[in-house]
Structures are given as structure tokens and as C-alpha cells.
């Protein structure tokens, strides 16, 4: 078990492929803290939420639930 005061050694980011996105809005409904949508239903990532530890699980869930496989989840090494 990790020590709560230690930061994990990786961060994460996600990318949405705008051409694949068809506006199912699963991402927005699962993680509105992380995603936003425009008036045509296209999904966007909120830049300020990217990489936050507490949103990693939601980010992975959103990625796994996109019917169009439009979201890519990438583990990144922290600075």
C-alpha cells in the first residue's frame, strides 16, 4: 500500500479524436469534472483537470466507455 503523503510516479493525459467523437456523451456524463461538450455534442477535455490524481479513475472509466473508441488514455511520467 502506498504512503498517502507520497505522490505517484506517473501522471496521465487523455486525448479525444474529434473525428471519431459522435456525441454519445458518455465521457461528459461519467466525468463532468474532466469533460465538457459543445452544442453539437462534441467532447472536450477540461485542461485544468488533466493529470489530476483524483480524476485518474474517472478518466480511465470514460475511456473504456466511449462506444466510438474516441478517447485515448496515456500514462505519462511526472516531471
Amino acid at each position, binding site marked *: 500500500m502506498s504512503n498517502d503523503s507520497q505522490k505517484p510516479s506517473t501522471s496521465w493525459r487523455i486525448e479525444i479524436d474529434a473525428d471519431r467523437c*459522435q*456525441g*454519445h*456523451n*458518455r465521457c*461528459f*456524463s461519467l466525468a463532468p469534472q474532466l469533460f465538457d*461538450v*459543445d*452544442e*453539437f*455534442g462534441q467532447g472536450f477535455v477540461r485542461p485544468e483537470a488533466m493529470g489530476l490524481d483524483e480524476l485518474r479513475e474517472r478518466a480511465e*472509466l470514460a475511456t*473504456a*466507455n*466511449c*462506444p*466510438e*473508441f474516441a478517447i485515448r488514455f496515456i500514462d505519462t511520467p511526472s516531471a
Partner: protein
Amino acid sequence: MNNTQTPPVADWTSDFDHVHPDYNKNAHELWETLRGSCPVAHTQRYGGAWLPVNYEHVREIAYDTEHFTSEAVIVSTDRPVVPRPIGAAPPITSDPPFHTTARRLLLPAFSPKKIAGFEPDIRALCRAKLDELPKIEPGHTVIDAAIQYAMHIPVGVIARMIGLPVDDKDLFVSFLDDLIGGANLPQEQLSAARDRVDTYLDIQIEAHRRQPQDDLITYLLNAELDGKPLDPQHIRGSIALLLLAGIDTTWSVLGSSLWHLATHPQDLKRLVENPALMETAIEEFLRAYSPATMARLVIDDHDFHGHAFKKGDWVLLPFPAANRDPAVFENAHTVQLDRAVNRHAAFGLGIHRCIGSNLARLELRVAIEEFIQRFPSFELASPQGVTWSVGQIRGPRQLSLRINQYNDPGTGQPA
């Protein structure tokens, strides 16, 4: 009208008929039999049609606008002559590039943020319908949850959004019976049914020309495509689409969800005791009881994974069957209300993703919430009390439920 003259089916692999009453009734077993023996079934009915039940095939066809056209999406005995590129019901009957702009006209009205604002009205509608039910004697009273509840929710919402009188709902249902349930009727009857819809909508649209309202008919009357007002057939076709797509489908999955809860008391209890489960439960109902099967027409002869698809053949897109594919979904045949990973295709895949998906989800969630809040315990009144629909939209058209527990809406306590 409900067509009872469909010839019997001897062999579902080579002579399937999705409009035969046995198809929807035994859908889940039938799809698994086909998945194991003949995953791309064929029939000579309807001038030639195919039924691919596997997720990957359905996905491939849905994405392939080179080989398959959306010119018509409800399988029928004829091949309708439709005005291209608009089609009879744009944008569902449109192909790219026209499809893209036609679809963009409607997307904003159905965006998640726009739709979220309807929640209070939908909740009020659900409560009103529940209030209208006869006095409930727990353990005795039987209601028809399809006719007395499920049907009214999507009708009330979409009629108001479009700008049609909610009181005409029986007429809307008759349109659906004709066009979906009666899809295998002779051409003249189908044409007459289409004309009835057109005539009705022409009157409603004309009334909006004279007196604009704050609704989708007026929005479309004022909309422009490439700098010009919309063709009247475009307006009428889109209104027909929104009306018909907005009723039958949501009503069906709502009825199926209530059927599931009536036949799985453990799941009902779990949902009543854990309201937070509703988010994943809704997606699982959508996966396991997806209401809508769409279709395409083959543009030119070609080989599809060893099958000789001919120009003009229908190809059904059974999203409900794809959603039960064990190659994609773990424990595909089990309804798991807490299923966390659920990338189901109930609303389609690709460019024709259902525009109404946000509205459908909201209606489904609120309607189930209100129903189980009022009736935390219910069961099927009898095995004969369920009648499944006929045709490409699957759901119970009759659902007799015995109410075993009833919460008084005033006190929230058992009555």
C-alpha cells in the same frame, strides 16, 4: 395495424423474418443460436435481406457509407423512391455529404445541456401519470405499465418539443403500428400509411407557418441550409423522424426495463435501496434491452466476409444483438446493474448516432426512478400479461404488473 399474416419461419438462418411475432418474443435465444451457427443470416423475404448479429460486423457496416446507404432504414417489401439526397426522413435517411449539414441543424436542440433543463417537466409528467392510475390495493391491483405509463412519457415530451398536440398521441401510435409493425405489408398499404403521416404533418406545419411557436417545427421553418430555407419535404421528413423516433424507442426500453425489474425482484430491491446504482443500471438496461434495430441498403454487389451481398439487399443493423455479443461484453447474457465498463451501441455507432440519446437517457432514468419510488415492489401479473412488439423496435406493448407495495406520494411512506 398489427400484421398477423407473416408466413411462418422454418429456418432462421436462411429464411429469417424479423417482423414475425416470434422474433422479438424469442430474440435473445434466437440471436445466440444464430451467433453460434450462422452469424450473418439471410432471407429472400423483403427482396433479400441479411441479419449480422455480431458486434464487429454491425460496427463495420455502420461505419461503411461506401458500400451501404441509409436511403431507407426500415426494411419493407418495396424499395421506396425517395428524393435524394434528402431521403424520406432526413437526416436518418441521408448519406454524406448532405447528412453532415442536415444533422448539424438538429444537434443543438438535443445537446446534453439543453436536454438537462427538461428534467423537472419530465418528472412532473411521470408523477401525473402515476397519479392517474386507479387506486392501488397492494398485492391485488394490476396495471398495464406499457399502456398506462411507459407510452405516455416520451410522447408527452417529444410532442411538446416538436410542437404537436399531445392529445393526438393515439394517432402517433397508429402511425408507428403502420410503419414499423406493419413494415411487411403490401406496398399499397404501406404507401397509404406514409401518406397519412404526411397529410397530418402538412396540416401541422401549415398551422405553424401561420402562427409561429417556440418549438422545433418553427425552428425548422426558419432554418437555412447553404443559405436557403429548407425544402418543405425536408422539414416534414425531419419532423416525422423526430416524432416516430422519439416515441417508440424510449417507450420500448422503458417497458423492457420495468419488465426486467418485475421478473428479477433482487434487482428491483437493489435499485430501490441504492439509488446511486441508477447511473450504471440505465446503461445496462440500454445494453441488454436495446430497442432499436436499424437497416441499410447495399449500394453495389460485394463480398462481405464470405457472403454475397447484392445491390439492393437490405442489411439489418441489430444493435440489440450486437450488445449481447460475448466477444465484446463479459457475461453478455447477464444483466449486471453495476456494470462499470459498458460501451454498448444502443444508440448506434458512427455518423448516425441517435440524436435523441441524451433525451432518451433522461426520460428513462426519471421514469424508472419515479415508478420504483411509487411502487418499490411489483411483479408480472401472469406470463400471458406481456406482449412484445413486432418489427425493428422491440419492447413490451402490454405489460401487466401486480403492484405489491405502494408508497403514498404525499408522505413517501408505504400505504
